[in-house]
C-alpha cells in the first residue's frame, strides 16, 4: 500500500467516524460505469463525503474538480489532491484562449467519472442556487455518460462556514435516478430540471425544517 492509499483510508475512516457518510442509492446502484455525479454544495466537506460514501472500488476512478491556484499552492495540498483524490484541476480565472471545461472533457474522454457541484460556489441558504451551464455542455458532448443527481444532507451542521473543526453529526448522500439531456432541450430548461432532480432527493425532515426556519 502506498502512502496515498493509506491517507485515503485514513480520510474515509475519519469521514465515517464524524459523519457516518452513509450512501443511499435510491435511483441507481453503485456500479463501475462512467458517470457524472452532480450535487448541492454547502461545505468544504462535500467532496470527502461523497467520496467516502462511494464503494472503495469506485473511488479510484471517480475524480473531483479542484481549483488549480488554491490546490496546487502548497506541497501537501498538491500531493493530497493529485495522489489521493486524483483531482481534475481547473483554472478559476478565465483566459480567452482556453475553454475552462477542457480538463473535464479530457478526463471524461479518458473514461473517468466526475463529481461536480454545478452551483459553482457554496451556498448556505438550504436550497441550491441556479446551476451554471458546465453540466449542460458536458451532457451535450458526452451523451453516453450517466448524469446522477445527489443530495448531501446535514453537512452544513457539521462544519458551518468559518469553522475549522467538524462536529460529529450523521450525514447522508442520496443518489437519485440518472437524467439525460433530451434532444433539442433548451439549456436553461435542462439546468432547472437537473437542479430540481437534486432538490427532489432532499429528505422529508430537512424540507420541513427548512420550511419551519
Amino acid at each position, binding site marked *: 500500500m502506498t502512502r496515498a492509499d493509506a491517507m485515503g483510508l485514513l480520510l474515509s475512516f475519519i469521514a465515517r467516524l464524524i459523519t457516518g457518510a452513509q450512501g*443511499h442509492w435510491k435511483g441507481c446502484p453503485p456500479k463501475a460505469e462512467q458517470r457524472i455525479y452532480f450535487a448541492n454544495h454547502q461545505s468544504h466537506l462535500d467532496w470527502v463525503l461523497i467520496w467516502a460514501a462511494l464503494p472503495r472500488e469506485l473511488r479510484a476512478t471517480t475524480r473531483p474538480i479542484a481549483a488549480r491556484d488554491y490546490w496546487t499552492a502548497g506541497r501537501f495540498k498538491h500531493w493530497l489532491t493529485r495522489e489521493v483524490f486524483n483531482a481534475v484541476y481547473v483554472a478559476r480565472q478565465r483566459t480567452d484562449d482556453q475553454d475552462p471545461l477542457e480538463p473535464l472533457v479530457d478526463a471524461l474522454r479518458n473514461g473517468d467519472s466526475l463529481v461536480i457541484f454545478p452551483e459553482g460556489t457554496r451556498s448556505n441558504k438550504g436550497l441550491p442556487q441556479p446551476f451554471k451551464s458546465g453540466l449542460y455542455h458536458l451532457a451535450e458532448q458526452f451523451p453516453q455518460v450517466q448524469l446522477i443527481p445527489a443530495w448531501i444532507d446535514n453537512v452544513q451542521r457539521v462544519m*458551518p462556514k468559518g469553522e475549522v473543526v467538524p462536529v*460529529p*453529526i450523521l450525514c*447522508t448522500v442520496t443518489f437519485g435516478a440518472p437524467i439525460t439531456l433530451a434532444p433539442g432541450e433548451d439549456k436553461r430548461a435542462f439546468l432547472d430540471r437537473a437542479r430540481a432532480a437534486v432538490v427532489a432527493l432532499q429528505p422529508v425532515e430537512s424540507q420541513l425544517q427548512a420550511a419551519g426556519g
Partner: protein
Amino acid sequence: MSTLKTWSADQQVALLFVILFGVLLLASAAVALLTLRERSGAQLDQHDRLRRELGAVWAGAVVFWAAWVSGPVGATVLFGVVSFLALREYVTLVKTRRGDHRSLLLAFFGVLPLQYVLVANRNFDLFSVFIPVYVFLAIPVVSALAGDPQRFLERNAKIQWGIMVCIYGLGHAPALVLLDFPGHGGRGAFLLFFLVVVTVGAQLAQTAASRRLRRRPVARHIDRSFSLRAWGIGIAAGAALGLALFWITPFKPGQALAMATIAAAAGTLGELVMSALKRDAGVRYWGNTSSVTGAVGLLDRVAPLCFAAPVFFHSVRWYFQLKP
C-alpha cells in the same frame, strides 16, 4: 456450587461469558432453524425483527466481553466509543443551530474524553460531580460567547441533556466494572452484568405484558404501550431476575432484590423519557429507516442503561458506603 466458590474472580467471569455466548448460540441456532420453516409474510416480518434484535444482543455481548478482556483501560475506551456514537446520534436528531458549534465541540472533544479519563483513574468523587457542576456552567458560557441569543435556554438544555444521557449516564457502566467492593475485588463485571440483565429483562417483560394486557396507556401521546400494570410487571420481573442472580453480586438476597427493583424502575422509566424525547424530535424510533439521517438505532438500545446505570451505581455506592 462449592467448587465454583473456590475459583478465582477471572475464572468466574470467564464462565459467565461462556454461559452467555452459549445461550446466544442456542438462540441463533433456533432462529436459523425457524427460517427454514416459516412462510407467511407477517411471520417473515416478525422474524426479521427477531433476527435484528438478536444481532444487537450479540453485538452488545461482544462489547461487554471485549470490555472485560481488555481490562480497565480497554473497558473505558470501549464505552467511550459507544458514548461518542450515541451522542453523535442524539445531536443529529435534536437539531442544533449554528451558534451551538463550539459547545458541541466542547462536549465531544473535551467533556467526553475527560469524563472517561476520570473513570479509568477511579476518581469517582470528581467523576460524579464533573458534569453536573462544572460542565453545567461551561456549556452555557461557551454558548453565550457564540453570541446567538435565539432559543438560548432550549438549545443549551438540549446539549446538557445529551451530555447527561450519553456521557454521564453511560459513563457509569465502566464505573461499575471498576468499582471496588471489599471482598469482591475483580468481580465488577458481575455488577454490570447484573444491571444489564435486570434492565433488559424488565424492559422485555414490560413490552410483553403491555402487548398481552392492552391496558389504558398512562400517557397516550408519549408512549401508547406504557400502562401502570405493565410497568409493575416489568419491575417485578426485573426484581425477580435480580434475586435469582444475587449469588454473582456482593449483595445479600434482600439487597439484591432492592437494588434490582431500583435498576428496573430506572431503566423502564428512562425508556419512557426517551420516547417523550423522540416524540419531541419528531421521530418514532431512533433507528427509523425512513429517517435519512442514517441513525443506526444505537441510542434506542443504550437508553435504558444510560438512565439505570447512574441510579444503580450511586445507590450501591451510597448504601455500602464505598470509598474507592
